[in-house]
């Protein structure tokens, strides 16, 4: 298949995605999706190409849908691919917990891609996710959110100062060398120490959670990090330094299994398209922090939220239902 557009335009779109993601810290995958489906109409070009090659239209649509998901997952897997080996080396992955969740994740990531979903349904649900993130970003530009955040920072700063007065520090590095140690393991309970702190989890609960997260994430071509982080920190009450390594390792497993599954289902990723966009994302992600000081981030966030709300409604078919030809 020929490249869907002029490489310069793909590169420029990549720069926009990288710029926004590195500045706002969200919506990278959604903007990549908008680029593929709205700006470059990758799915339509692929369907046309496949139909011209003699493939039935229904099959061509399925292949295009699966290819979009693989493109998304390829963008997701980049960072785990680089960071997971390092995390293991630095002993920052809670391996016993990661293994328990991984059991569920592998199963879920195999089932997710097998759940039937048309291209139209996929776009609709992606629209729902886009709309929700748009609302969240809009909320983050409001005075209520800003005041709440300021209050949060000032309270925790006071607490921090008080604790510093009372506490002797310096034990952390010694404990880091120890990594994790399993102290008790059976079907109903897993107890281990990690960086000197003891944790007790239910392996079945961990696997079941991983299973459902992986089904949802792999169905939509996502890594699942946005669900894993609250899951690990809220359900298992794990500290953040532990959540980072463990969730990235699980996202890696989920993405890898889902990509393999979609490739077996006939997805045909266009590596040139993805490669050009990634080079653009790399450039944009370095321009973002440099230029951030020249304007208020709030305005970019507001602009992005409007874009996401608009496209969320478009993917859900709201504009079409209202007879607005956008």
């Amino acid at each position: 298949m020929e490249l869907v557009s002029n490489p310069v335009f793909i590169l420029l779109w990549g720069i926009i995605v990288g710029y926004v993601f590195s500045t706002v810290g969200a919506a990278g995958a959604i903007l990549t999706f908008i680029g593929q489906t709205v700006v470059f109409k990758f799915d339509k070009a692929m369907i046309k190409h496949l139909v011209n090659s003699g493939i039935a239209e229904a099959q061509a649509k399925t292949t295009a849908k699966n290819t979009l998901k693989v493109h998304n997952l390829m963008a997701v897997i980049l960072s785990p691919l680089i960071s997971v080996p390092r995390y293991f080396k630095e002993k920052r992955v809670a391996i016993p917990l990661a293994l328990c969740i991984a059991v569920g994740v592998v199963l879920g990531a195999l089932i997710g891609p097998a759940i039937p979903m048309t291209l139209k349904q996929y776009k609709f649900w992606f629209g729902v996710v886009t709309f929700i993130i748009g609302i969240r970003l809009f909320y983050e530009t409001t005075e209520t959110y800003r005041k709440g955040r300021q209050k949060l920072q000032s309270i925790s700063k006071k607490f921090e100062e008080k604790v510093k007065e009372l506490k002797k520090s310096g034990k952390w590095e010694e404990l880091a060398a120890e990594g994790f140690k399993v102290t008790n393991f059976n079907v109903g309970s897993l107890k281990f120490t990690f960086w000197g702190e003891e944790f007790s989890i239910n392996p079945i609960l961990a696997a079941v959670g991983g299973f459902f997260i992986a089904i949802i994430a792999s169905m939509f071509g996502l890594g699942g990090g946005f669900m894993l982080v609250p899951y690990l920190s809220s359900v298992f009450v794990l500290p953040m330094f532990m959540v980072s390594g463990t969730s990235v390792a699980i996202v890696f497993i989920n993405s890898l299994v889902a990509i393999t599954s979609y490739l077996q289902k006939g997805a045909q990723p266009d590596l040139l398209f993805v490669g050009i966009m990634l080079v653009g994302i790399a450039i944009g992600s370095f321009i973002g922090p440099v230029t951030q000081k020249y304007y208020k981030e709030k305005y970019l966030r507001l602009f992005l939220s409007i874009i996401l709300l608009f496209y969320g409604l478009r993917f859900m078919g709201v504009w079409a239902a209202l007879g607005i030809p956008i």
Partner: protein
Amino acid sequence: MINIQAALLVSLAAFIVTPLVVTVAARLSQQQTKDKLMAKIKEYSELSSDASNAGVRNMYAALQKQGNEVLMQYYVVLYREAVVELALHVLVLGIIQNYYPVHVLNFSIQVWGLGDGLSSVGWYIISAILVFQLLVKPLKPKLRFFRPGWV
């Protein structure tokens, strides 16, 4: 059977691109930013643990929320680092996929996951890993261009 011309050509691409990527990635290293953010995450984590021990639930929730925000910043930096390290490789893979889609190795049997041969794309991935492991890694301590933050 091996297609020697294709094997050499693709390996040469991996031989050129891999050290180039490592040099660029080392120059643009995000290690310092990552260390700073991780220290902040650890700090919030310790504080929230203290808050939990002291039974101050609101404080625990507030500190966890702030830790979460820093964690998201950490993920963005992580992504920035990864995209620099892999974008050029994916681009080269794309060029090979589009303009040089040949079989480098032909198997006489069907191999699960690979089919009847190893494509130029697969050969590039293997070559790049080998170049990294056998050439770049041993040279890292000796060549400053491969070390983070070189100027």
